[in-house]
């Protein structure tokens, strides 16, 4: 079996995936679907060769998945890696099937062991790291951390010319985003633990005391309308990266937590000690938010 790896790149997050194949020691080919600048960045970050596919106006990268898969399969690499973003996954899924590879999500590390590839992956929502082995080709969805890579001598970049499937971007409109949430240092956010609309003032008081922006979980904005829709955080709402995210009365559903993955410190106040948010938060207070918030405000003002 050869030791070649291919990395499929269709978004700005790619350094972790590229770094993940480097310990394998084989030749590394990167396929970049997107702007030339992105291909040049990848070429100076350790890839041995870069194949660059320029996107035509109005054609999404996914339209090239089928023809790109044929190119990948012809090279028959043993390891194929892409990020977990939707576009990267579509490219990987097509190539993986064409290559008859194993497809493993949640991958955080790759290694050789004799003739086998060892795959370390996060399982059961990240509660455990499982090591899997295979002797055939493997396609990995990389879910580890982003890293910084040392600059390398530029690898050759050659242009790929492949045919697109019938797929077209027909409309694109900006989704309203609350001013301030995007680049806020601190965000105080609340969920259904707040009992009445009038009580939003209580949470707002805490946000003011902490010099934080106010946000909420989706049901608060969508079902109850207690805060503008532009202020909810979660999978389909705002994705934010404050230094501090303080969640008040939020259970911590995965859809919500996806929106704060970039936060440095997550703290939570919840009356339920079993609340899911305590599994991911860095700090927490178990208690009644109506008692804890005044105590926090008093403490901050001391």
């Amino acid at each position, binding site marked *: 079996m050869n030791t070649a790896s291919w990395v499929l790149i269709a978004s700005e997050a790619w350094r972790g995936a590229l770094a993940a194949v480097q310990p394998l020691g084989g030749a590394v080919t990167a396929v970049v679907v997107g702007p030339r600048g992105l291909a040049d960045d990848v070429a100076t970050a350790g890839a041995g060769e870069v194949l660059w596919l320029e996107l035509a106006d109005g054609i*999404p990268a*996914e339209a090239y*998945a*089928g023809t790109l*898969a044929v190119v990948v399969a012809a090279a028959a690499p043993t390891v194929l890696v892409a990020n977990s*973003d*939707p576009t990267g*996954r*579509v490219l990987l*899924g*097509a190539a*993986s*099937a064409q290559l008859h590879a*194993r*497809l*493993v*999500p949640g991958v955080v590390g790759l290694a050789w062991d004799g003739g086998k590839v060892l795959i370390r992956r*996060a*399982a*059961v*929502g*990240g*509660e*455990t*790291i*499982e*090591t899997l082995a*295979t002797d055939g080709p493997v396609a990995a969805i990389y879910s580890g951390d982003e890293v910084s890579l040392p600059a390398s001598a530029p690898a050759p970049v050659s242009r790929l010319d492949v045919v697109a*499937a*019938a*797929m077209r971007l*027909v409309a*694109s*409109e*900006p989704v309203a985003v609350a001013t301030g949430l995007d680049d806020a*240092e601190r965000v105080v956010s609340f969920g259904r633990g707040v009992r009445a609309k009038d009580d939003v003032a209580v949470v707002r008081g805490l946000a003011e005391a902490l010099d934080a922006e106010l946000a909420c979980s989706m*049901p608060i904005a*969508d079902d109850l309308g207690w805060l503008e829709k532009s202020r909810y955080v979660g*999978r*389909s709402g705002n994705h934010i990266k404050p230094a*501090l995210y303080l969640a008040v009365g939020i259970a911590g559903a*995965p*859809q919500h937590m*996806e929106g704060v993955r970039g936060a440095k*410190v997550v703290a939570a106040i919840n009356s339920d000690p079993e609340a899911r948010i*305590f599994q*991911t938060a*860095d*700090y*927490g*207070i*178990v*208690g*009644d938010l109506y008692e*804890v918030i005044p*105590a*926090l405000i*008093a*403490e*901050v003002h001391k």
Partner: protein
Amino acid sequence: MKAVVVYKWARNAEDAMVRTDGSIDWRNARMAAGEDDPAALAAAKQIAADTGGAVIGLTIGDGDASWALARGVEQAFSVADAPSLADNGATAAILAAAVRYIGDVDVVVIGDSKQEPGVPVALAGELGWPALVGLHSASMPAGQLQAVRRVGGEQQTLNLATPAVLGISAESDTDQVPGMKELLAARKRPLTKLTLSDLGTAPVDLVSISCRKPDSTPSRVFDGEPAQAAAQLVAALRAEGVL
């Protein structure tokens, strides 16, 4: 238009138990409706409604197959002996074989699961069909398959040709629990049980070598009197330099 909705195709990770040595106990976990399944079903129904077509359910494994039948799907197929696999490609190959068995399918709609994010895309790869995933809705106005997604502060609408695979990502928990009338109606709807041998597939999974707990610091939870807990939290956040 013949739309297949794939549902209950993964085990619920919340029912799995991770032992202190990191190993996983899956004994209490069955194939369950995923958090994205209701959104996938809604999209499949919309496509069928827009074209006067039908939605056909497809499920694998040991879960109760009536989930879709009780939610307005007229007929379903179940590959009951399909095991749960670490290899998303092998799971996708079973689903692809079942889609081919159903025959003449124009679009496959599947929840874009966070736990098994490789299955929808590998399913498209196995079928050799174009795919879009991470979508929040889909429809088929004027005979044109259309999908909507949000990317980096933008809402994008995309048109694509059939056949295609669409991965739908739920925005919220939107499942509508059926009433007694729907549950009774579901029992009368046709459910075709298939086996792996009917489909001519014999999946072989990856070999699990070991498991270990990740190196992470569990959250520090303060649960004393409010004033005391507040003081501890503020001190901790100041020490972190975020306050």
